[in-house]
């Protein structure tokens, strides 16, 4: 692969430093060049009034159809509550071994769970989610190693338990896929 880059597309407002931090972490983990840019979508098309959430499956398909040709891997960053029809919520979603993923920080903040605001927590959690979803686009499935970023997380506590790094087993797997 000649061109090895990842694009992080923000939909909605994200602070510049926050995005920079995320991009640095992604670059460190995947050793790809990482760009950030703003994306524009009319999110009302993906809003489900019955659930008062945004349809993640449709959003993923939309991001994929518009932005996937820009780089090797694209990841849409959202701050809205995502769901898929069968589940009450999701933190993010990606095409396994595909080019696109999405992640949302909506459910990652402390205050949503009645705790004090802590920006460090939300940044760490979002880094892990972004790397996790990008890992799926590289063909990685959920890992059973507790510290691996590819471990499945259904609660924020699960995210806090794992590191922001891909374990050796998953890295070898990813390298074999890339070769």
């Amino acid at each position, binding site marked *: 692969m000649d061109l090895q880059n990842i694009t992080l597309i923000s939909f909605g407002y994200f602070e510049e430093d926050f995005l920079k931090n995320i991009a640095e972490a992604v670059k460190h983990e995947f050793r790809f060049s990482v760009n950030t840019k703003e994306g524009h979508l009319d999110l009302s098309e993906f809003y489900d009034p019955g*659930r008062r959430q945004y*349809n993640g*499956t*449709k959003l993923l398909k939309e991001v994929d159809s518009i932005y996937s040709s820009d780089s090797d891997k694209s990841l849409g960053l959202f701050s809205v509550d995502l*769901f*898929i*029809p*069968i*589940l*009450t*919520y*999701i933190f993010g*979603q*990606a*095409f*396994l071994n595909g080019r696109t993923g999405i992640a949302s920080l909506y459910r990652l903040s402390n205050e949503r769970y009645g705790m004090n605001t802590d920006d460090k927590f939300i940044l760490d959690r979002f880094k892990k989610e972004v790397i996790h979803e990008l890992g*799926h686009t590289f063909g990685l*499935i*959920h890992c*059973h190693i507790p510290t691996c970023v590819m471990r*499945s997380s*259904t*609660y924020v506590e699960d995210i806090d338990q794992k590191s922001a790094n891909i374990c050796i087993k998953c890295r070898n797997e990813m390298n074999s896929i890339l070769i």
Partner: protein
Amino acid sequence: MAKKISILIVDDEESVRDSLYNWFIEDGYRVECAENAKRALSMLESDCFDIILADIKMPGMDGLEMLRRIKLLKTDSIVIVITAFATVDTAVQALKDGAFDYITKPFDPDDLSHLIRNASKQISLTEENENLKKRVVSLENVEDLIGNSEAMKKILKDIESVAQSNSSVVITGESGTGKELVARAIHSNSPRKFFPLVSVHCGALTESLLESELFGHEKGAFTGAMYNRKGRFEMADNGTIFLDEIATISTKMQIDLLRVLESKSFVRVGGNKEISSDFRVICATNRDLKSMVEKGIFREDLYYRLNVVNIYVPPLRERIEDIPLLVDYFIKKYCISMNRPPVAIDSAALKRLEEFNFPGNVRELENMIERAIVVGNGKKISLKDLPLEKTIISSSIESLDDLEKTHILQILNKYNWNISRAAKALKVDRVTLYNKISKYGLKPAD
């Protein structure tokens, strides 16, 4: 993940199928989708799935009907039903029809993960259970019946052919030839293998004890009957009852046994309630039942009822070509059980074993090898480790009575017919020794 679990998603809504597909594929499962029940059933005809996630409300055939058909088609697939509107009736119906679980959408991601984890655990437990069953069968199968001789091959063939039937079997052969092993092999190859094999050594029990043992007793039936007790026939329900030394049972027991075999029902000692039990009977004896029938000692009707199939286990001296294999088997068995490195046997010792008469048959050989491993140098079994010299080598000895008679005579001669010393050496009292002398007509040599 040792085995890739396969999941079939059946839902008429594309968005639900896509959501579940993406969710499970990220977990490393093999996932396929079907848009309706008809398509799912056709996929199940050509492919196997460990877990089927099916929506209840679908156009055409609904999820519950599909569940019933899946259970007819693939009973080992785990089916989880999904619905948007949970009602107790639908849930109960789904579970009654064999669903593993029931979930209302949309569900919490963690609930879905738990559900699939539980289903996966169930699959691995089922597989483990199957593997263990196979191992148990192979352990109890025929591996203890060692030999390559024609006689042994015939026994194995007989076991194979009678195991699947429900017929009564009489196993005949000298003591120590392995009649009980044959009975176990028949049971463990039969459709009754997952039910008990209940053994009763008829010769070891008095008539009243045997009656209580076989039929059970009610509390207070006799002195000491403190509790109700199930009999062996009751315990062998759906399984097999093995009656060893059947020739030793009394005339009364023969009548009782015949009645039980004919009706498959009986009454506990001291009870009045008829109890039914579905058992198969396998008997063993070292006596000639046919001649006992001719002499009127054994009931003819019972003989024919029991002797539907006869398997003869020949004595070891009639299959000496099996001795090296048996020796090898017992050496391995005892070296492992005694946690010792494997030992060899020298050719002279093996040759001597092949020439030996073995009145106690395979059991005697087994004991000899066990002893040789205990007393030997730990490297090689030699002639000196085998107690052959101390054993009576006589081709005329066939029955245990003959063996006992010869041994008593030998001890009496050794102590110059001093009854007290001989009784002490034999570890019996003097009265018993006198009775034996009288029974066998023993006299001092001139």
